[in-house]
């Protein structure tokens, strides 16, 4: 089943020299994919992911998430849509500094009005899955960069999204932590069937992806399935 579909998607940043950040992109992503968006700096990875995530509006073209056209949603509907359908992992500043790992992961379920009893159970299970069962009460400042990103993954999954978008989730991590984060994401993809779409520069991360989409100057220049696991 198609989770994400873009049709002739374009984004032009107006300026002295207009920038064609995303240029006529047609793309479709199926359920259970583990896909990397790669390409040199400025090739349009962030812009593309932001539009797919409903954070930014395209200049032209359509984005459909689970058959719902995002352009037809109002600002407030879009916020609600993000809350219900998409999990986000950013490069940094993923967490609320004054809340513990547990509370951070719980927060998104609170926004979804899930009762406290269910929240606690789910959060504890998720933090266990990302290997943080003994750090649940630590604040972000008491966690390493890699641990913070793992909390962010748990938080992204807590809302039971259709897919998880991650823009350079490993950019601020050392290679061992990056490896570890990828292991967790990969396992969640295989065992729980979670769809991941992430952008990256890192060749070792690219190697782990099943499908690799390469952008250059806002255009897809290659789209390959590297391996089946």
């Amino acid at each position: 089943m198609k989770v994400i579909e873009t049709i002739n998607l374009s984004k032009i940043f107006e300026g002295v020299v207009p920038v064609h950040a995303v240029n006529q992109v047609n793309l479709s992503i199926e359920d259970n994919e583990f896909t990397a968006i790669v390409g040199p700096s400025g090739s349009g990875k962030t812009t593309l992911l932001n539009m797919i995530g409903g954070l930014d509006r395209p200049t032209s073209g359509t984005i459909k998430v689970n058959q719902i056209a995002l352009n037809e949603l109002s600002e407030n509907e879009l916020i609600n849509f993000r809350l219900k359908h998409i999990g986000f992992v950013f490069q940094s500043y993923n967490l609320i500094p004054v809340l513990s790992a547990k509370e951070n992961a719980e927060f998104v379920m609170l926004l979804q009005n899930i009762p406290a009893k269910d929240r606690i159970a789910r959060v504890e299970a998720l933090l266990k899955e990302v290997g943080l069962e003994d750090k649940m009460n630590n604040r972000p400042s008491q966690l390493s960069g890699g641990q913070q990103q793992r909390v962010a993954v748990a938080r992204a999954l807590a809302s039971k999204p259709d897919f998880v978008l991650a823009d350079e989730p490993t950019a601020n991590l050392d290679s061992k932590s990056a490896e570890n984060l990828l292991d967790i994401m990969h396992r969640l993809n295989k065992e729980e069937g979670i769809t991941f779409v992430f952008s990256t520069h890192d060749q070792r991360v690219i190697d782990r992806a099943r499908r690799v989409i390469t952008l250059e100057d806002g255009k897809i220049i290659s789209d390959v399935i590297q391996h089946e696991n």
Partner: protein
Amino acid sequence: MIFKVAWRNIWRHKVRSTVVFIAIALGLWAGLFTSAFTHGMMNQKIDSVIKMEMSHFQIHKPGFREELQVKLLMNDGENIVQAIQEEKEVIGVSGRIVTMAMLGSANKNGSVRLNGINPDDESIVTGINEKLVEGEYFRGVERNPILISRKIAEKYKVKIKSKVVLTMQDMEGNIVAGAFKVVGLFDTQNGMYDELNVFVRRDDMARLLGVGNSLHEIAVLLGRHDMAESMADKYQHVYPKLEVLPWMDLSTGMRMMIEMMDTYTFIIVGIILVALLFSIVNTMLMAVLERVKEIGMLMSIGMSKTRVFMMIVVETICLTFLGAPLGILLSYGSISYFGTHGINLGDAAYADMGFSNVIYPSLEYMDYLVVSMMVIIMAVLAAIYPAIKALRLKPVEAIRKI
């Protein structure tokens, strides 16, 4: 959870929040205490105005109060006094004859307000007998006794048993004079009053003026302050040809002063709150601006605008409510303490302005309630601008900054 986040965010900057906290507490305290002080001063002034000067209401011939013309007499004054005395709410009625007179001693001459009174009635209405510091209340001197204040005694260099001469105009406009013997000295603590008023027996004065049983002034003391206006109104209807006025209309500016006092607390506290408002807005604005990325992230993951708005409002209210209860408690404590023990201003000049020199601050519960409401409104107002600032954030731009 929103409360938890708000609460913990406040303590992210301990010093900054503590400064706001202390500013709010001290500001409220200063405002409430100042107004309690002024209230106390006013209440005492009102009390003394009623007890000493005006009673609850007075009756005169129209125009008498302006120039104290001897001719403007109420011929059936005694009957009116009798009639009012029957009233249930009435504690005492004093019928007087009043005129301006020249008081002369061996050392000095000056003008005074000469009150001819019935000593028994007057003691009930103004309690002037209790203010005696020397001598006796119209006892011990048979002929023409006079009661003067200690202030006048010092000024005119006279003592108990000294002789003074009172000179005035009678009904026909002739100058008449009488010799009086000082029988007692009083001190009401109200300098202005003391320098002006002297008391003699009404009969003695009536003989000099030739006014017989008629009266110039009838002063009535009631059981309750708040009955003054309605009672005055009632008797104005009974005696339409006379002028019946409650105490607040007897002295110029009094009514305005009282009405101003009712709003005084709120004006003072309002000004302080407006000043505090700016410091809170400033603090919250800083809190929002330094959290642009965090707020952008929250909006990205799906926090609604209403919730973002609420988050900032709750945080502002928490920040405000940290200081407000302390300020109100501090006020309540200090007002209660000084309300029973009093604040002694020493021999300050207040006494001469008709204010007492020991002030008992007081504030009504209603005032605390209204002030608390004002604080809540202020906190919400203070939150609005920073909250709107937060809402204006575009998640993509905030995220880009990451």
